[in-house]
């Protein structure tokens, strides 16, 4: 009897968080989806069914912004993985535990500092009179300061990548830490070159972490608003900035439609993740690495 009672405890422990998520996350999400089909009134909307908001999304150039944001997010994922994977590899396979944990703390620091503050500093660094242009002109690489360093795709990409690297380092580090060293030794003993062992053993076994990182980075980049505004300039549009401006003109059905399309994009990615990898792998990686 007592053990049966105990078996209920984990479910009961889920209850507060489950209720909270249900009331404050799932219900608003469902409402957002429904509002996308409601007709717009002057300052609000009324219950009904119309595809006007979705038609407006597709026909007014916002679909181009959506596609551009998709490409920007994919570019951010690729560059962040290329930049962060070697760091995670170094921390997991080259440093002992204490040193690795100390360095990992450095990657926690950006998390505790506001995105706006972090991005704000890039605005100075990439500016026409900033230190990067100063060095480029100083060493003679360019004659004039480069204008495209700031308020451009390049600047937004830099901002998104630097904000995303910690999201790559942690999951990839976790997946690399859990690789059984005997597998790598076996590969080496069988005569595989280091590059071959990396390509055929290390990289495939770290893919769950890579894919988890891809999801985190994509979600961050896709929904980002502050970074495109600060580093892209006034006319720079992403799905996040479009959503903000649509809310500014009180077009709630269109805002709901844009949000629903964004959420659907994330769900497709999550579905892909669960199809390709077991969703529990990330949790298992975390517990194994401790």
């Amino acid at each position, binding site marked *: 009897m007592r053990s049966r009672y105990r078996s209920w405890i984990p479910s009961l422990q889920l209850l507060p968080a489950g209720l909270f998520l249900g009331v404050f996350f799932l219900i608003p999400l469902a409402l957002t989806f429904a509002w996308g089909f409601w007709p717009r009134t002057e300052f609000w909307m009324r219950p009904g069914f119309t595809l006007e908001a979705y038609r407006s999304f597709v026909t007014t150039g916002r679909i181009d912004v959506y596609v551009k944001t998709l490409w920007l997010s994919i570019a951010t994922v690729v560059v962040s993985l290329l930049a962060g994977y070697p760091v995670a590899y*170094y921390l997991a396979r080259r440093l002992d535990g204490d040193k690795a944990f100390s360095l990992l703390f450095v990657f926690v*620091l950006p998390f505790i500092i506001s995105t706006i503050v972090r991005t704000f500093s890039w605005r100075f660094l990439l500016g026409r009179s*900033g230190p990067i242009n100063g060095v480029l002109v100083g060493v003679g690489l360019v004659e004039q300061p480069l204008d495209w360093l700031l308020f451009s795709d390049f600047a937004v990409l830099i901002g998104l990548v630097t904000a995303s690297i910690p999201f790559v380092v942690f999951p990839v580090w976790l997946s690399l830490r859990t690789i059984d*060293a005997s597998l790598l030794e076996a590969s080496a003993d069988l005569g595989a070159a280091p590059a071959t062992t*990396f390509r055929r*053993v290390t990289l495939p076994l770290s893919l769950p972490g890579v894919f988890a990182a891809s999801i985190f980075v994509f979600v961050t980049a896709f929904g980002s608003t502050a970074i495109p505004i600060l580093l892209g300039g006034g006319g720079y549009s992403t799905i996040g900035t479009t959503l903000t401006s649509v809310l500014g003109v009180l077009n709630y059905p269109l805002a709901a439609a844009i949000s629903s399309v964004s959420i659907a994009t994330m769900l497709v990615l999550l579905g892909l993740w669960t199809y390709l990898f077991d969703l529990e792998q990330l949790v298992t990686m975390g517990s194994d690495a401790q």
Partner: protein
Amino acid sequence: MSAGGTLRGWRPSALGAYTTLIIAALLLPLAYLIPLSLNPEGAPRIPREPTLAWYRTVLSNGDLVAALVQSVKLGVLTSVVATPLARPRSRSSRRSERGTSPGGAP
């Protein structure tokens, strides 16, 4: 070649240097803000004569101080609500991973 396909020789140091470079890219922009905040001019340059004038301006501006206090309140409130909600679930997960029942012996 090392056991496990790790790369010895110059490569580890290259990886170390690369990691340092990435850490610098993450932290230097933040560090750059500190001297800028000590610049008495409006221009984004490293100051020749550092001053705390901007800090005095911030602290004497009622709206900015109120915004700061509001942010701190929101941060504390979020922690107070979120942590107790998530903690029972995380404890439950740890127990089930270890194969123990709550409150029971391992």
